């Protein structure tokens, strides 16, 4: 199994092993402040380094790997890229978080906390929406998200305002259903998903 650092290297072309722990990413992280990550991105970098360092001691390495993949932090990241932009060592930190999220899902390690479950649900609702219609549809997205989380009433108070500002149509549900009937799943998008799936399988076999 590839180490996290190797996965990041192949996905982003940069490596967390270059991190010298200055903490600039964490000092300026928008989510670190508002969402209260369980550890800053700087610690994620360190843990990835230590997994690599203990490569020849699989048990210790796995411990470090699990601490990264089961953390809330990787899910709290909003991919705003501020850290990547500021990193003095040129590490793609936001990209690293992406890789961590993918790996956590693939290895079934994602954190079991409520807030991570909500975030993962949003991710799944979004990607399913794209898979079905080939585009992002707010009503369909919100619908699936609510179904998955069972949290029907949260954020409801925002709906009237969004409608007033034209962000969401009150007839959105009908519109969505119509467009679904009309176009069906976009063929081109289907190809993209198939290609991605094939690539993943290929990687797994390696």
């Amino acid at each position, binding site marked *: 199994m590839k180490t996290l650092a190797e996965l990041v290297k192949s996905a982003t072309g940069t490596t967390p*092993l*270059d991190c*010298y722990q200055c903490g600039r990413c964490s000092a300026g992280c928008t989510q670190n402040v508002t969402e209260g990550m369980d550890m800053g991105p700087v610690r994620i970098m*360190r*843990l990835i*380094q*230590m997994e690599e*360092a203990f490569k020849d001691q699989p048990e210790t390495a796995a411990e470090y790997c699990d601490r990264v993949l089961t953390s809330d932090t990787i899910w709290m990241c909003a991919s705003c890229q501020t850290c990547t932009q500021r990193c003095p060592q040129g590490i793609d930190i936001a990209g690293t978080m992406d890789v961590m999220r993918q790996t956590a899902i693939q290895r079934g390690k994602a954190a079991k906390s409520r807030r991570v479950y909500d975030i993962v649900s949003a991710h799944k609702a979004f990607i399913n929406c794209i898979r079905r219609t080939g585009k992002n549809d707010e009503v369909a997205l919100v619908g699936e998200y609510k179904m998955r989380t069972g949290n029907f009433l949260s954020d409801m108070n925002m709906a009237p305002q969004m409608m007033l500002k034209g962000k969401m149509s009150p007839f959105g549900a009908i519109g969505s259903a119509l467009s679904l009937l009309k176009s069906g799943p976009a063929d081109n998008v289907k190809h993209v998903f198939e290609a991605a799936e094939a690539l993943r399988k290929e990687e797994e076999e390696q």
Partner: protein
Amino acid sequence: MSRIGVFICHCGENIGKTVDCARVAEEAKSFPGVVFARDNTYTCSEPGQAIIREAIKEHGLTAVVIGSCSPRMHESTFRRTCAQAGLNPYMCEIANLREQCSWVHSNREEATAKAIEIVRSVVARVRNNTPLDPIRVPITKKVMVVGGGIAGIQCALDLAEGGAEVVLVERTSSLGGHMSQLSETFPTLDCSQCILTPRMVDAASNPRIKLEMYTEVEKVDGYIGNFQVTLHRKARYVDWNKCTGCGACTQKCPQKKIPSSFDEGMSMRTAISIPFPQAVPSKPTIDKDYCMKLTTGKCGVCSKICKAGAIDYEQKDEHFTVDVGAIVMATGFQVMDTDKFPYYAGGSHPNLITGLQFERIASASGPTSGEIKRPSDGKPVKTIAFVQCAGSRDKANHVAYCSKICCMYTAKHATLFKHKVHDGNAWVMCMDVRTPGKGYDEFYRRTIEHDGVHYIRSRVSRIIPDGDDLILMVADTLDGGKQLQIKADMVVLATAAVPQPDVQKMAQTMGIAYDGDGWLTEVHPKLRPVETATAGIFLAGACSGPKDIPDTVSQASAVAAKVLGLFAHPELQREPTIARVNRCAPPLQSSCVGCFTCESVCPYKAIERETLRARDGSTRQVAKVNAGLCQGCGTCVATCPSKSIELDGYTDKQIFAALNGLV
């Protein structure tokens, strides 16, 4: 009759804001002897100095008082100004109206009154000043460099290049010092021997450099320009003039089990030996503590094998004196031994080594021919751990200072290890990594980013032996202090750099200072980094504190420039403000009673004895001040029970007049 000029400086607002300078100048006109007084905004400026020069000429001034800043600041400036106008510089005195008046007072009226009193006092003093002439001392244009490491070699080469005669004293039998033990040098990784040995050869073959090998400094007498140094040349038991350096003796010597100090005890040498193959001069010496012929009288193999007949068991130690004008201390440093660290595997585990020992292991000419094998069983090392700050930055147990070179040499060691053992694992335990220097941080980052060395920010608490392996107890402080145990085949301690153990004794005989850690101290750490408090003795390299090679070489060249600057003068001029034991003639007599209390209190060893002959032929010994050594501190003046010593420029008459001026 004195004709005194008084110049009161406003120093911008520094004095002018608190002291009414115009009033001080006006008052000064009424003091006895004053013929001219005025105030000025900036007296030290070029126009301000021009006013002084013109006044001296116009009013025929015989003495000048400047009311300004501290004499430490501008006394030399104003004395030069007076000299330019033809006045003896020692007829110029400073009244300190800034540090001792305006800066420490706020009430303008009272400060002005005090300023007037200060000026009155200095005017009274200057009326008793006498013109003084600088003391002229001849210079011996030869310099002694103590220590044949890179500092001494570089300094000697630069001095010889500049035309000076050099005596290079080295206590071992080869030049090279610690640098010759190193495998490669940071940050460029060029081979240490390759860049050093040509310089060693240059130093040995330079006609202006005389090598004094296997020789130590015993005693230093004299003063700047005129030192007499007693050297002690230890018996080598080999006549180097006859020896061809063939090395046959070193191979046949039956006494083969002596730990080699060049290899830091990691290989064995014979009783007659050349320290390392590239040694300069490449001549053997016999270790009298181990040689069977010298200890038991039975052997003599080397004498039989030597075709040149160079072996001389009867050779004796020699003591001789050299006259030099300057001395350069380039005595270097040592590294702490592992036995200072009982908490690290008892301090004596065979696979627990110092950085210098690792240099020998990594060196192609070392005990393992450059292969990284551990000492206990010769097994190739796969996992290595480096422990930084072993002893350094540990004021409770060892030394408080940072040894400066360890971060870089540890990074270099780890890099060398990874270059030699591709599948190996290298760990570095550090507190901080300090890499200020050209290309240094880049080198350190390359160690991590390119060579994959793992750094853990932690101080190792203990090292536990596990058979031949060692287990390090650390805490990753970048991961909330998580405890880790790292198992390594070999551990390298970056032990603290410490002064040579006997350099303090030498410093005492020379009268130069050293600090609490034992490092020789410079006059000023920033502005006079290579000079000692004793004029004519200079410091190069690590004898004044841990230094890397670039810094050491820079200092060595800096010292060479200082010494050549000294030698550029036909003779030395020194401040004439020195002590003088009174004499009256004829016949030559003195009120000195010859108690020599002054001799015992003088910190500069400047008191000598002189024999005076009375008219009736009787003689007696009195004190005499050596003008070359006296620094004018005045301790003898205060001590003399018969009031026979005066400090020129600070005579009793001047001091009493100044005091009377105040009351």
